């Protein structure tokens, strides 16, 4: 086992406290304006496409300087602004009572308040607005998506959720992995002997890695994203990277979709450009590369029309203008083939962990 790391204490709690302050500041701003008989207004960065930029230094999407103002003076803004203030109240209550909720809950709760949303996307939009106003992701004010991704490895955390305060969990306790839900996402890191994080797109491959003891052999925490990583998962990857200084390696299928799963973890999505704290810029794409298909002679299928179209799109995307992306995208165009992570099984079940992973990690760690 590697040496013990210094653990930052109370990070999760600090973030929540910070969110709560921001929520209160929002409400106080509204109250002040009402008392002065000014129409309350809230300013937030514009999230329209013309205000989303790719920051080359940060290697992620960020919002530009344009702001929008929601003002109660405008009759069309009144309802959304009220919904925003209400969402702030809900968030602050969740934090105060240490409860969690989901976007779906929010949608239904609004109906009970005479603030019904037209549809789920509209209610999601208000939560997104609240994120950009208080500059915290919704996970910081306890609104979580449906959980589906999981983690396995020697990491010990301490719960902060009500009823579990102080209780600890080790991620080796369940060989199926432990779901990254609100309780995990809000837990404090206590201890780990891992020195890296390996993120895997698919459940079958995650199970293989556990069974082949990849976590032990490579001293790694394994995270399974189940396709595009949920925001809580991206947040925890970032925390592992920032708080525990663990390097992150990303494995997905050798196709444009797999590439993008990795890319979103590294540099974020345009949708979440208003939240800086979901990205892990130092994470490394570890495969499966197009060149691996050739190198390992992997069973592959032809790229279909959609794949080609998507490849062309990401070929122009600023996030893909560095290596190894550029070379690999060209390689895809050259061979016009794609392969799944499972393709390595033609060399036996342990090949991917014994040989491929070993050589790739050596390559990347330099």
């Amino acid at each position, binding site marked *: 086992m590697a040496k013990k790391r210094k653990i930052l204490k109370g990070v999760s709690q600090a973030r929540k406290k910070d969110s709560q302050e921001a*929520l*209160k500041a*929002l*409400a*106080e701003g*509204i*109250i002040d304006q*009402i*008392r002065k*008989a000014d*129409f*309350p207004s809230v*300013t937030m960065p*514009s999230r*329209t496409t013309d205000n989303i930029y790719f920051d080359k230094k940060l290697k992620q999407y960020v919002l530009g*300087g*344009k*702001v*929008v*103002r929601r*003002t*109660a*003076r*405008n*009759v*069309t*803004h*009144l*309802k959304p*602004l*009220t919904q925003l*203030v*209400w969402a*702030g*109240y809900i968030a*602050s209550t969740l934090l105060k009572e240490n409860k969690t909720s989901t976007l779906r809950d929010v949608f239904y709760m609004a109906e009970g*308040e*005479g*603030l019904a949303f037209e549809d789920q996307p509209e209610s999601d939009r208000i939560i997104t607005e609240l994120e950009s106003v208080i500059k915290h992701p919704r996970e910081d004010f306890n609104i979580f998506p449906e959980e589906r991704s999981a983690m396995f490895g020697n990491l010990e955390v301490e719960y902060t959720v009500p009823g579990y305060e102080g209780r600890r969990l080790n991620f080796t306790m369940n060989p199926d992995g432990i779901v990254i839900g609100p309780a995990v996402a809000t837990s404090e890191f206590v201890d780990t002997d891992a020195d890296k994080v390996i993120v895997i797109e698919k459940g079958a491959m995650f199970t293989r890695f556990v069974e082949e003891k990849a976590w032990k052999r490579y001293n790694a925490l394994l995270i399974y994203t189940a396709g595009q990583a949920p925001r809580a998962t991206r947040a925890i990857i970032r925390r592992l990277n920032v708080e525990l200084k663990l390097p992150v390696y990303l494995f997905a299928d050798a196709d444009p979709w797999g590439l993008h799963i990795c890319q979103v973890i590294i540099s974020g999505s345009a949708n979440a450009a208003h939240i800086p704290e979901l990205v892990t810029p130092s994470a490394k794409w570890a495969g499966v590369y197009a060149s691996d298909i050739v190198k390992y002679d992997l069973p592959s299928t032809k790229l279909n029309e959609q794949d080609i179209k998507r490849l062309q799109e990401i070929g122009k995307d600023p996030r893909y203008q560095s290596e190894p992306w550029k070379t690999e995208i060209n390689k895809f165009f050259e061979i016009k083939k794609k392969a799944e992570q499972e393709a390595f099984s033609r060399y036996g079940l342990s090949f991917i962990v014994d040989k491929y992973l070993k050589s790739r990690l050596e390559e990347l760690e330099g």
Partner: protein
Amino acid sequence: MLSVRCASPGRSSRIPPEGVPSLAETFKEISPADFFYRNRDVAGFSNPTRAVYSTVRELVENSLDACETRGILPDIFIRITSLQGASDVSQVLKILVSDNGSGIPPQYVPQAFGQVLFGSKYVLKQMRGTFGLGGKMAYLYGQITTNAPLRIVTSTGSKVHEFSLMIDIQRNRPKVVQQKELKKIKKWRGTMVEFSIEGDYYRASPKIVEYLRQTAMVAPYANISFIDVEGRLIRFMRATNLMPKSPKETLPHPHGIDVENLQRIIEFSKDRNMQQFLTKNFHRVGKATAKLFLNEFKIDPRKDPKKLSHDEIVELARALRSFEGFLPPDASCLSPLGENLLEAGIRKELQPEFVAVESRKPSAYSGHPFIVEVGVAYGGKVQQGGSLYRFANRIPLLYDESSDVSWKVVNQLMNWKRYNVDLATAPLAVVVHVCSTKIPYKTVGKEYVADRPEIEREIMNAMRDVARRLSLFLSKRLSYEREKRRFDVFERYLPKMAKYAASTVGLKSVPSVKPLLVKASKLSSEVVEGGKEKEDLEGSVAS
């Protein structure tokens, strides 16, 4: 000298003028009672349903006239009771109508009620477009179907007389069955008529109620009470104490003269030369005009009108109609409702949200003066889908709507879309009143007005005028509603916003949004309803 009591109230007068008995001789040979019984379709007694409706209508109009000619605010009472079922389609009904009008001196009662076409006015009344029958056709019809006498109680204010009458149809003479003075009733003035008739009440009933309702609309100064066969009381209450001006009597205008009229005027005239004949017997003909006319047509002013040959009379009638030197007829013989009364009537019966009325200036067609009055009622209790109420000389016209000139104007000539009205769905009622010394009815049924260009134009102009005012009202209301809806949004959300903000910071007293609501009510919608894009632009400047 013949005189015409013009137009409204253009109902039959019950009191014959002086000197009438001599005229009755003239009509002796016509056997009018018999004639009209044989031609009862013409008078609106074609079937058991129409008979009941027409009876009520004639009697109510007589009663209204008896009040209006003396400027008395009418109190009309109608009661119909069913005596027995005669067949599936008709019953024997007892109809009673009473009023608080002038009453009839007892010596005139038998003739007034029991002799059809009694009086010289008959001829001229036909000219004016009303029957000389009054209620007499109804009494006649009642007697023929039930063989029961007519009961009349009347008083001019002193003694109260009761009569029991029948009509001798062949001889057209009243037969007084019984006559007595009712000493027990004191200080009562008016007339009550009661008689039996066979008819179909159940089919007639909706028309009767509609007739009374529409009558109440153009006689808002009347109380009308009706007790139907089932014993139900239907009342139309007086809404104003104002009554329209009574029309002045006037001579016929030369432009409206035909050969038959002319012959009768000559016959009754005592004037012995043309100059005098013209000035004494025609409306708007003075000495100078008469001279001019006689000159133009090379007629000797000294000629005796009684000595005109038949061909000369034909020529004279044509000349009178075509001469352009006559001034148009004066409308003092007309009695329009006036804008105030029309509006009061519409408000009372239709209970709309908005009313606009227009009383046009007098106009004339073929020597007959007329006045068009139009009203529109919108919203409130007005039914959807544009209903039309037609009146001629204050009489509601209930049949053959789509043949009427007003229907043509409303449904074909008016472009309602220009006034933001969708005729098919709008809660709109249009009221058209035409009053004239001669309503140009299209047929003998007298239920619809012909599309004379002069009348059509007047209706059209009046309609456009009220529609313009309606359109203005609608657009004002629309912007008011828009403002209201906008303000509702502030009212709904500002308190909530304050409440949630206060709860977030744990504030116990929610800050008051009242000053903001006051501010919001003053904001004009133009200022506030800037688009989102505009806001975004402002935002980028602010950053």
